[in-house]
């Protein structure tokens, strides 16, 4: 028991680098769109193949991705991609903060503009704008 606790204490964390975060995001996107969202993704590809407008399907798929991030971050503490890349959230992690932190995935104006702003903020400040607002940080275990 004591050993376990001392090992826990030794864990060193630091803000996750942009590359690890990108890798984690790509993994999550793949899971959310191609595995969990498979019924919608199939409908989307069918619609596009037949040249029909797929605005509704695209929006629903984006919403599903949004729920994936919110629920995993809030109730599991990390998404699957984050768990693989050893990233976790520190700071505020309530349902409302998870909602706010991921609202860039909501495909409606003006929230959809955040999808352009967030990467710029991440590159500039090493932290997304919504992370700053929700007072939370994505950290990675390094040792």
């Amino acid at each position, binding site marked *: 028991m004591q050993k376990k606790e001392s090992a826990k204490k030794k864990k060193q964390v630091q803000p996750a680098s942009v590359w690890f975060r990108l890798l984690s995001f790509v993994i999550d996107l793949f899971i959310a769109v191609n595995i969990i969202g498979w019924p919608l993704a199939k409908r989307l590809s069918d619609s596009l193949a037949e040249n029909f*407008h797929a605005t509704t399907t695209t929006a629903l798929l984006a919403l599903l991705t949004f729920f994936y991030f919110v629920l995993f971050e809030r109730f599991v503490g990390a998404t699957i991609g984050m768990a693989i890349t050893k990233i976790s959230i520190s700071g505020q992690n309530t349902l409302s903060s998870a909602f706010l932190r991921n609202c860039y995935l909501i495909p409606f104006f003006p929230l959809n503009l955040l999808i352009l702003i967030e990467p710029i903020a991440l590159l500039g400040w090493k932290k997304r704008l919504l992370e700053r607002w929700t007072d939370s940080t994505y950290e990675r275990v390094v040792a």
Partner: protein
Amino acid sequence: MKQKWIMASAIIIGLFILAQLFSLGAQDDIKNGNVAVIPVQGTIVATGESGVFQDSVVSSDEVLELIDKATRDPRIKAIVFEINSPGGSAVASDEVGQAIKAIDLPTVAHIREVGASGGYWIASTTDYIVANRMSMTGSIGVIASFLDFSGFIERYNVSYERFVSGEYKDLGTPFRKVTNEERDIFQEKLDMIHDYFIQEVYENRHLSKDDESYELITSGSFFLGVEAYNLGLVDELGGQVQVQEHLAQVLGEEAVFVRFETEKSLFDILSGDVRISLIPQSPLLLQ
């Protein structure tokens, strides 16, 4: 740890069920209709070149692809070409025109604001043309132009060193004056394209070249919809309602429109309203 696994599994299952429900709810994406509406809007070019610094363009590649999709769709019984174009490349207009002629279904051209030159060439290949009475149409002529920079470079003491193999290889270069002979060559090519254009329109519209209106129609002048109607260049004056009524008559059932369009990329959407024309395009334009 075990609790996290349970929670993660519950979220995955829950979201998958939600995706299924969303999928059923997204049925409205597949629109039902029996008449395909294909927009032909902007300058007609052969391949897509739209961008921030260019006018709105429509490529023949894009229109041909949409025609192919519409004709392969078993629900589609007629095709409407919604034309709003001042013309463009002769080759691209001809490509679209030939593709329309090969369609087995009834076709209608709906000229809204402008259906001139290459735009009219395309319209003439359809079975029926409906135009707004104030729309601009006709303009059956060919234009070619380029800027002559020879005076400009001379003023700045820059000379054009000409190395050609083949006397007319640099025909149309903006760095020297065009000779009379070269002018004749250009004119000859333009006249040839003009002849093709006239021939196409007269054949498609079943007009007679002996008619007294021949000179006027082929002068390159544009006509208002109402004038074009009187000259036999359009079949009916009106808009979407008239197109719908005509098709209902032809098909013997209600005409329900479904738009066939190419999906726009995020960049297209963002740059859509700030397009300006800076660079003159292809020298041989039906504009």
